[in-house]
């Protein structure tokens, strides 16, 4: 099991999940708010649509193409 921090809150999970999958384990699967404030979640699942971009360890990256790592910090883009 590994621990990932989502907006500062620890989440314990098995290994091998993508950050997008991890979001579905949280209270809300939202990745970001759109430019008009709408909630958005992973959509295309394969690195095309950019809906799931979040800040991972300080850099903006795609949740659907990033594997969770022990101690990783993920912040939603709001």
């Amino acid at each position: 099991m590994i621990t990932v921090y989502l907006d500062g809150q620890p989440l314990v999970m098995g290994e091998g999940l993508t950050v997008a999958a991890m979001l579905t384990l949280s209270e809300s699967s939202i990745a970001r708010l759109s430019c008009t404030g709408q909630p958005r979640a992973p959509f295309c699942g394969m690195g095309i649509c950019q809906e799931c971009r979040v800040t991972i360890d300080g850099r903006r990256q795609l949740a659907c193409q990033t594997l969770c790592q022990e101690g990783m910090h993920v912040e939603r883009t709001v």
Partner: protein
Amino acid sequence: MKNHKTLSCDIAIVGAGPAGLAAARAASVSQRSIAVIDDNPLPGGQIWRDGPQVSQLAMAKDYRRVLSLPTVRYLPGTRIVASLAAGALLLEDAQTSYRLDYEQLILCCGAQELLLPFPGWTLPGVTGAGALQALIKSGASVAGERVLIAGSGPLLLASAATARAAGALVSGVYEQTDRYQLINFGVGLLRWPGKLAQAFKLFSTRYRWRSHVIEAMGDRRLEAVRIRQGDAEAVIACDRLACGFGLVPNTVLAQHLGCSLEDNAVAVDRYQQTSQTGIYAAGECTGVGGSELALVEGEVAGLAATGKVEQAQALFTHRAYWQRFARHVKEHFGLRPEIRRLARVDTLICRCEDVALSVLAEEQGWNAAKLQSRCGMGACQGRICGSIARELFGWSLPEPRVPLVPARIETLMACSEKDMS
């Protein structure tokens, strides 16, 4: 610059799905150095996507072995930012940027889902059909959730099967094409017995034809979907809607490299060579056709790129068999006109910049729309809304701009160093 490296190889292969792996395997026999670049963290592409909830096919495992050969350098989680010059690509992964020099290039960029807009399609809980499959394979939890699958094409059944296996309650699979087309499709499958068996295995009693989504409903999250089935409408409560209207080839990198397109796919000759000498393409970026076709095309490309012309020729018959299958699928899942009219005036077309249909409908073409409405100006660079505009308005796809995907400024800065000029 720290965090920047220069690599070189004889053959660069873009994509580690079936086509890319087959190309790498065929080319590896020559003992030439190979680099396989893939944006996913794990190999397999979409169809052989690996993850915590996947029991991988033996064939997929077998093909993956090529990535651990000493002559093969595998770059997972790595995106192609731009072509720097003939024979040089700029890449980045989560930490590092790379200049990759190559002699020959094989594009196996795959396909993306055709994701068409309907009211509510931006609500969390709505994904593509293949997207749901990808998310589940990557570890997303859907156990006990009520899932609806809709759209068009054989992917719907595969997606439903994946969701069901992960514990979801699939309450319906809604295919837009009509019964007549489906029966013809099924009968036609007799020519590809393996595919027929697969269809039987995946078939669901929840499968409905001539049916499609009208709208997704919910307050900040999906709560229900309005479905039209034949002439009747129904509202069905659900937690997830997975909706995709088939696949379209990924041609962005090929266009950027100056390769010609034909029928919205990368144009190739019988050796899978594109209009640019030394650049080959295989798999669904050259036309959607499934993994069997991708495998044989990848093999032809890998052989041709290493000069094994006769061995490549020996595969042409086998390739033609699967090319016929690709045409068979395409012929039976054409979109009905009403599918292109699902969006209402206030439905967003550009999800990056939140541009509604009403704004776009006033524009004459992609360039004006982009300049005036910001449609396609966001992070996805029109990858989603560009395909939509093509389907809805007949506009041509946007010209790829660099960086081809969002990239760190640090990566783009690395290009000014002496060795990069």
